[in-house]
């Protein structure tokens, strides 16, 4: 009786449930995992290419570019470029950080007062298209790219006025897109209010 049963159960076993088709089998689950990984990789690539959140040059660049990313559409709502945070700010280490927004067709703030002889950290981003801040005497150019915060380090030894025009064509108002830095001795800088440091434009 037992001998007869064995081949019957063997034949049903081999026909209906072969090892690789069993639900808990090692072969099939590994294959499924690989399939899911490949599918999600494909979907990620498609998403990065087609529906990329910020206006950076590519999705991969966005992922690899580190912490200096920012959404150009919401600069005024959150983050370090809200309007109360723009302009020069004194740092605990004695340096000064200047935050600016480049937009069609202005640099905001348009005129910034900075102290001479201290290291300056200029952080700039763009709200719309690519602009290029050019500090005439320092020979320095900073490209302001939407989606990114770009940083440059400057130091002015001489007091005076330093024009900073835009050197990247950005639209019909490009040629009027100019701002300036006014470097003053540190003691004079300390006595100025934040309002005066940001609004040195002449009327």
């Amino acid at each position, binding site marked *: 009786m037992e001998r007869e049963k064995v081949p019957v159960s063997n034949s049903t076993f081999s026909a209906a449930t072969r090892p690789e088709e069993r639900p808990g089998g090692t072969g099939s689950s590994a294959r499924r995992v690989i399939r899911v990984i490949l599918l999600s990789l494909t979907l990620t690539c498609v998403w990065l290419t087609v529906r990329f959140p910020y206006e950076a040059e590519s999705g991969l660049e966005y992922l690899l570019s580190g912490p200096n990313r920012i959404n150009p559409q919401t600069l005024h709502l959150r983050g370090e470029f809200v309007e109360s945070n723009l302009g020069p700010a004194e740092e605990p280490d004695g340096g000064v950080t200047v935050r600016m927004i480049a937009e069609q067709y*202005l640099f905001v703030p348009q005129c910034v007062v900075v102290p001479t002889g201290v290291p300056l950290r200029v952080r700039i981003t763009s709200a719309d298209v690519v602009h290029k801040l050019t500090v005439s005497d320092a020979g320095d150019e900073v490209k302001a790219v939407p989606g990114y915060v770009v940083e440059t380090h400057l130091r002015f030894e001489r007091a005076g006025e330093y024009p900073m025009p835009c050197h990247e064509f950005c639209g019909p108002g490009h040629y*009027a897109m100019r701002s300036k830095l006014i470097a003053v001795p540190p003691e004079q800088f300390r006595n100025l209010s934040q309002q005066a440091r940001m609004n040195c434009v002449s009327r």
Partner: protein
Amino acid sequence: MGSDVAEPPVRIPSNVAWTARTIAMASSGDALRGLLIGRRCDRCHGREGFSSSPSVPNLAGMDRLVVWKQLDDFRSGKRSSPVMQPIANSLSLEDSADVAAYYWMMPIAPDPQDDRAFPQSLSDPKHEAVAGRLITAGDGNRGLPPCQACHGPVGFVTGAPSLATQNATYLLEQIEGFASGRRANDINLRMRSIAVQLTDEERHALAEFYGAGLAEPNARPAGR
């Protein structure tokens, strides 16, 4: 980012950000529904979108994103007006989009039978040249971009209104407001940076130039 910086109290000029979602919502209004809601705007803004008082803005042909943003700013108190704030408070986001769609499709053609204040004549003929230069060329030495690069017809910036059919008194009030900071709902300090640099003569000249209908009317920004 910037965690080592002591943050001053954050000032937010407007809750509106021009994300794709906001633009889609603001431009999805139903003009017919807007016509019904807009009946109560008639008394000040005119039956044809042109006001009989020069200190009230004309809304005919106004870009719908502009109307929608201003209504939202009135609602959130980012722009203050004792008249408009209660009215805006009674409108939902969809209502605002409908009203905006209604004014957007109104024609800006002249109508002799309408009691509109627009256009008014210049108070000083010299103003035409002063304003014309600022509108078409700006002033590069002071970093003043030409008005037409954002307000049309040469270029458009999202949220910048067309000014070609706007009332002079209203415009002057807004320029003064931006310059003094009384009105501060422009995103990223755009208008405040510009208005503060204009001299008194330039402010009057610009307001009167637009208010006299001397500026070229805009082709409607496409696709919005």
